[in-house]
């Protein structure tokens, strides 16, 4: 099983790019939130892979990934709360229509 660093990094970059693409193209707020999760997990994958590669006897990379997962959980929590609040006011979750905070 050839599993070098490059495979992990390529997978991670793909995940990250899919996330950015999703953010830029999706109109649904929930979908955007999910794309953010995707990007965060791409970063987590990077942390773990590089951590295992550079310091195989330590768990620094895994530790950072654990922190990021925790923060992402909190962030998703707040994000969904905001989306629910927006939905109650506008009865929709399309970000293109929720543009009252502009010049």
């Amino acid at each position, binding site marked *: 099983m050839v599993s070098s660093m490059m495979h992990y990094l390529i997978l991670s970059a793909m995940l990250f790019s899919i996330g950015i693409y999703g*953010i*830029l193209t999706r109109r649904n707020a929930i979908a*955007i939130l999910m794309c953010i999760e995707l990007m965060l997990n791409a970063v987590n994958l990077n942390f773990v892979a590089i951590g295992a590669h550079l310091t195989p006897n330590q768990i620094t990379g895994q530790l950072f990934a654990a922190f990021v997962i925790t923060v992402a959980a909190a962030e998703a929590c707040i994000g969904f709360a905001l989306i629910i609040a927006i939905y109650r006011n506008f009865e929709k979750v399309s*970000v*293109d229509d929720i*543009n009252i*905070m*502009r*010049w």
Partner: protein
Amino acid sequence: MLSVLLNFALASNAGAIHDVIPLLIIVLPFSSFLICALLGYKLKKGAGLLSLLLVGSSSLLCLWVFVDVIVSGKGNGELIQGCWMTIHVGSKEAPFVIPLGYLIDPLTSIMLFVVGFVGWWIMLYSIGYMDGDPRYHRYFAYMSLFMASMLGLVLSNNFVMLYICWELVGLCSYLLIGFWYERETAMRACKKAFIVTRLGDTGFALGIFILVSMFGSVAFYPLDGVNGIFTSIGRATEGKENMLALAVMLLFCGAVGKSAQFPLHVWLPDAMEGPTPVSALIHAATMVAAGVYMVARCFVLFDANGKLNLFGGLIVLSPAHIVALIGSFTAFMAATVALVQTDIKRILAYSTISQLGYMMMALGVGAYSAGTFHLVTHAFFKALLFLCAGSVIHAMGTNEIFEMGGLKSVMPITFATYLIGMGALAGIPPLSGFWSKDEILTHAFVHSKPIWLIGEVTAFLTALYMTRQLCIVFLGSPRNPEAHPHESPPVMLLPLVVLSVGAAVGGLIGTPWMNLYASFIIHGMASAGAHHKPPTAIMFFSIAVSLLGVLCGYLLYGARHIPNHSEDPLRKLLGNLYSFLEAKWHMDWYEGKATRRVFFSLVSFCRRFDLGVVDGFVNLVGWAVAYLFAQLHRFFDLYVVDGFINGLAFITGVCGDMLRRIQTGFIRHYMLFVLMGFVFLLIVSIWRIVVLGHP
């Protein structure tokens, strides 16, 4: 320092007068003035002693100069002159040099002696008289300044220095008349004296200007290549007799003011508000004689062929005539007023005016020697009389002669010395005043009979009013029972005795048989050399006139007791004339009226001119300048300061307006910006790695 200077002077030029000596004569009293004025409040009593010491040393130097001139016989023709400092004014093409220096001839030397000697004794007397005065040191500062400027006046060798010192003595006179400035009368008197003499001084200054324009010099005699006025009269005044006469008359104006001649005599009686020693020194012996001295100094000018052609030659006057006329009229007028005065010092003041008139008269008739001789003797006996009067005032606390009486037994020394002074003034032989007055009258007789007659009448009046004063003050019984007079302290009596000796025997140097004074003073004065052999009859006539005056006075005032002023026997005798004289010929009134009429209208015109035109112009200019600057300021503020601020705000606004347009409200856009930034950073990092080889 001083002793070093003195040694230097003595060693370098033994026996002769060195440049330093006349300088010291002036500088010593002046340093006394500076010390007393600046440190007097610390010195207190020491101020009097210090100034006495410094002025005394200066007086000793004066005496030395006097003796040196007599002994060496210098000043006969050749003058002792020196220059301390030259002031160069004018351009290179037309240089004008003012040599500030000294000139010593017999006249100067005798004046130095009189001023120094009489001045010092009066300062000694002041120690007693001014004792306890709160402004003691200031008094001595002023007196020292006066001595310095008077000696400077006498020593000066040019008109500029003469004029400066002339004004300085006027200033001292002003300060000392108003010495007790708390008194309203003193305050008014000092202003009056200053303003009235200023009238004359203006003429004096104008006269000097004319002389400068005629002669191109201010020096009296040639010195160090500078042209001398007195020695170049003939050349410079050819065909300008009118101009010369005008200049000389203007000079005489100064003398009229300073020597209290008609019509500017009104200040002198009021000047008696000053302390009595001041009256003795300044308003009797020395400063008022400055006018006479100046006329004597410029005698050659008065004697020159200056003629004043008035009305196209209808009236031709020579300045000397006018001097004689004004002098004789003043002598007579003042003597009549003195006859009815009741203030002991005012009597003496009018007597001073009268005697100064005598001196002017003498100079006017060409009796140079007699005029200056009377100046010298008068300095002694009039200073003596004033000091006696001061002693009496000190004892009685009043100036009114009708509150005195019977002082002979209480104040024997004062009485004795007063008797000598009175005799000298009245012209009783062999006292000093007799000889000088006789010489004047003799010259007047030769020159002009009417003037001589006025002189004799004045002599009679003089004897009369002096006897009146003597009888009322010293003889009879006391009029005021509450007064407790006492003899003055020795420090005041000593000067009286010394001066009375001078007043008694001083005249003997100028008797008609052996006139040492005339031969001393007249050297080098070719024009004044005409020496008349005196007709002895004139002399005996003068004696008779004087004795008649004394006799009349005694009969009127000495023979019976006169309780008060309204019982004055002259009042009955003269009737309306008495009130006329009492009002001083109404001269104060007329002059006051003239002043009000002419000067006040002039002043009110000037005021209106000042308020309307001058102030208006000044205000206009001020307003215009203020307006201009305000406008300038407004423009600057509006367009520069405000413009800057507004511009800044505008630019900020525009930038903000432009930048806010990126706030679209679409999350997509924001993310795009983030991505663009990320890509940009990525490109930069890659570029750095590729180009530089490290991140």
